[in-house]
């Protein structure tokens, strides 16, 4: 049975209710007021009953020992012996020190001190298992006009500690509250506004009750505990302030309660943070997401004093942090400890008046070992992809500047899978010389490459990070590793959002870093006009054909190897390589007597050669592929080539194409029909002009998507064509897709 004083209203009522609900104890409330006269008291008692608590109210002035004895006897008769006491009674009449007299001191001491004595005299102390008393931070820190109240609270804390020493079997907790918002003394005295001006924040009722619960559950809690929000400029409160580590993003602490909360501020410009110049997009310098994660990690380290690597969870990059190229921006990183091993962080910027969250994340410490597992590196047997990142990607589809250019070569660069080598470089010079250069998470250049290396999967847009579920950072293990192996696979796609899982391994195959669920958003989308380097065109064709025709086809485009013998040998080598790329492993191609290529078992494939490249399309079902450079021909020549489809060429011209491009499109469509085992003279009709550069034809149940584009290494336009039949499984697949989304949504819901 829990006996409560001062418990009919305010913070004591909230705490008494929580304790009774949690423990199942019956509740006896002592107070001076008459519930019939006091609406607030009556409402609180009714609320307690509604929560399933057996509650009785006894009228007594807690400063009058006789009244207390009588009331307690009556209550114990009804509810059983008292095993716990919550002493919350108090009286606070602020008065200037010069007017404090004996009478005021007596009135102030009476409920806190005489009240405690009276209650303890009315119960049997040896039977008590728990004594909770409510003091005030004023007892520790003092406050203008509160000399008498401060003394009463200081003495209360002393008596509580004394009782703890006298009765070691009784748990004693004296909570020295700071001001509560919404309920309690502070609210009644309307001090909250003036306290807020002094930088003091009130404890919200829910949080105050949660703290009480945590302390009651913690057997190591000392008998006297201060519970408060920020205490602002009060000079009489001393905090543990170990020196902050010297870290770039902890330069100027604005708010600091060690182990609880830290807000730090830095000014960023291209001089102090020269990597910003390597992250220029559309005329704006953007703080890279990898530096956002580093900044949050630095603040979490300074806040907790923990130096081990955290796991970054639920990082969100909600708004870009923009630094004007000729100016600067101030960013604030705020961190708060929410659980023993968990820190919540957010970054705000002067660019938005510190009113909006730009980045946020949670950092978890002690999360355990970095798990190994997929994505795994591509198998051996295929040569490196003919992509030179330094010339083919950086400055072309990748905007990242020198410090972030860490992609060295690709083993695989497909629409949904990437396997590449990246380099860590020490001594990159991220910050100006007068700033601390320690990086907790390890080389940001490598980490940025883990995000931008996926760009080859979506080569017609710029991918920017939106969020990541979990990052296990490598930290200093990255130091100067030159042959890091980076693998990413697309887990799902939803419109313009692509989700990847990523693993980074050392040259010897040891896992170093892992990202689960990196979501990238495609912006700055371009059409397919080129000029393309061959290996990037494959992923683009694969994605677009799937979008337009609604069926999955694996597509690869490989530049021809001029050194591989005669033309037939060259073409066959090109087909084998392109088919291997499309499937992600080396393949053995068989040839029918008519020269048509195939696989010994498994899906169908179709290959074509032209304009210095080999195009290969693979799928389980009918497939055809063709590539032709556009050549200028007169009307008679086109008539000869396309025969009965001449009218179709005119239709395509009417839809906006140049005559030679239109002729080449129809010609490639006819070639695709032949390769799919149909006749070039089969009926062929214009279906749609879905996007710039793309024309789709239909022939019965077959669809042929054609793209007119340019290649970097060929002078003239080139037409690529891919044929498929209608996918019988489309409907079913779509259902599966929907189910999966629902499943994912549910997860997201739970994670919140």
């Amino acid at each position, binding site marked *: 049975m829990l006996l409560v004083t001062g418990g009919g209203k305010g913070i004591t009522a909230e705490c008494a209710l929580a304790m009774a609900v949690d423990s199942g104890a019956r509740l006896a409330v002592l107070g001076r007021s008459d519930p019939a006269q006091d609406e607030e008291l009556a409402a609180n008692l009714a609320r307690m009953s509604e929560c399933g608590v057996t509650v009785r109210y006894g009228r007594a002035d807690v400063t009058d020992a006789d009244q207390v004895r009588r009331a307690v006897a009556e209550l114990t008769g009804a509810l059983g012996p008292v095993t716990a006491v919550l002493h919350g009674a108090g009286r606070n009449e602020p008065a200037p020190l010069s007017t404090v007299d004996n009478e005021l001191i007596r009135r102030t001491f009476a409920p806190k001190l005489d009240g405690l004595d009276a209650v303890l005299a009315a119960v049997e102390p040896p039977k008590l298992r728990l004594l909770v008393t409510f003091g005030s931070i004023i007892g520790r820190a003092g406050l203008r006009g509160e000399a008498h109240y401060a003394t009463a609270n200081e003495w209360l804390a002393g008596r509580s500690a004394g009782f703890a020493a006298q009765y070691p079997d009784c748990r004693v907790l004296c909570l020295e509250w700071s001001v509560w918002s919404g309920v309690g003394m502070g609210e009644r005295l309307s001090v909250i506004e003036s306290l807020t001006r002094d930088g003091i924040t009130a404890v919200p009722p829910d949080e105050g009750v949660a703290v009480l619960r945590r302390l009651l559950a913690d057997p190591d809690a000392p008998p006297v505990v201060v519970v408060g929000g920020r205490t602002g400029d009060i000079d009489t409160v001393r905090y543990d302030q170990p020196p902050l580590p010297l870290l770039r993003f902890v330069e*100027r602490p604005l708010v600091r309660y060690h182990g609880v909360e830290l807000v730090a501020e830095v000014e960023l410009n291209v001089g102090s943070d020269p990597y910003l110049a390597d992250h220029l997009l559309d005329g704006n310098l953007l703080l890279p997401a990898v530096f956002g994660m580093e900044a949050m990690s630095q603040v979490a380290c300074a806040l907790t004093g923990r130096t081990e690597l955290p796991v970054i969870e639920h990082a969100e990059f909600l708004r870009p942090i923009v630094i004007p190229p000729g100016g600067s921006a101030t960013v604030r990183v705020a961190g708060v400890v929410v659980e023993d091993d968990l820190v919540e962080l957010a970054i705000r910027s002067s660019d938005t008046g510190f009113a909006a969250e730009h980045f946020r994340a949670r950092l978890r410490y002690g999360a355990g070992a970095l798990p190994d597992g997929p994505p795994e590196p591509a198998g051996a047997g295929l040569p490196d992809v003919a992509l030179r990142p330094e010339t083919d990607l950086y400055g072309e589809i990748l905007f990242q500047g020198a410090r972030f250019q860490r992609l060295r070569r690709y083993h695989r660069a497909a629409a949904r899978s990437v396997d590449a080598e990246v380099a860590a470089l020490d001594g990159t010079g991220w910050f100006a010389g007068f*700033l*601390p250069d320690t990086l907790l998470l390890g080389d940001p250049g490598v980490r940025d490459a883990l995000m931008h290396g996926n760009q080859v999967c979506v080569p017609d847009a710029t991918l920017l990070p939106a969020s990541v579920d979990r990052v296990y950072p490598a930290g200093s293990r990255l130091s100067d590793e030159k042959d890091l192996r980076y693998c990413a696979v697309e887990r799902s796609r939803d419109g313009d959002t692509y989700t990847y899982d990523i693993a980074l391994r050392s040259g010897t195959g040891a896992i170093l870093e892992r990202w689960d669920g990196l979501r990238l958003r495609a912006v700055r989308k371009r059409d397919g006009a080129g000029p393309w380097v061959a290996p990037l065109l494959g992923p683009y064709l694969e994605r677009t054909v799937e979008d337009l025709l609604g069926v999955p086809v694996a597509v690869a485009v490989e530049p021809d190897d001029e050194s591989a013998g005669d033309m037939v040998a060259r073409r066959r080598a090109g087909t084998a390589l392109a088919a291997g790329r499309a499937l992600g492993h080396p393949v053995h191609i068989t040839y029918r007597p008519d020269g048509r290529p195939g696989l010994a078992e498994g899906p169908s494939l179709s290959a074509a050669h032209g304009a210095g490249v080999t195009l290969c399309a693979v799928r389980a079902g009918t497939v055809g592929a063709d590539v032709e450079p556009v050549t200028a021909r007169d009307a008679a020549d086109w008539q000869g080539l396309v025969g009965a489809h001449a009218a179709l060429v005119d239709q395509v011209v009417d839809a906006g194409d140049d005559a030679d491009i239109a002729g080449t499109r129809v010609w490639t469509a006819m070639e695709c029909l032949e390769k799919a085992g149909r006749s070039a003279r089969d009926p062929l009709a214009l279906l749609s002009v879905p996007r710039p550069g793309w024309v789709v034809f239909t022939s019965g149940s077959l669809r042929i998507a054609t793209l007119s584009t340019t290649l970097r290494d060929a002078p003239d336009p080139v037409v690529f064509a891919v044929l498929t039949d209608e996918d019988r499984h489309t409907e079913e697949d779509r259902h599966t897709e929907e189910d999966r989304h629902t499943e994912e949504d549910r997860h997201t819901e739970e994670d919140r």
Partner: protein
Amino acid sequence: MGDYFEHLHTVGFEETNLVGNVYYVNYLRWQGRCREMFLKLHAPAVLAELREDLKLFTLKVDCEFFAELTAFDELAIRMSLVDLAQTQLEFSFEYVRLEPGGGETLVARGRQRVACMRGPNTRTVPARVPDSLLRALEPYATRLRG
């Protein structure tokens, strides 16, 4: 005694230009002079540290001008601490002309940001603001907002 360190200076001919008013470069020299005199008078321990491996690395200097000065003007340069970070601090300077008949005129206002570094010349690294400097600056930091 206000919340600033004051350095007094009488303008000389060497500081004026062709037409007789003070060449703007001198205002920045006076900032440096004021800072030096503060260290000499109030933070001799910092001077000792400067002879060891401490470096006060000036990151930013600015000045805005409101009125002209000419030779023999009596000038007070008043320095306050306006920002204190882990390794950096920022001073403000007020340039006040002391009028012959009493009274004063604000003629210019400036700022200066400084980073503390330590180590040999080729490999200096950022360092915390020395305690000796913090203690010396305490009286001049009342404009500081945390």
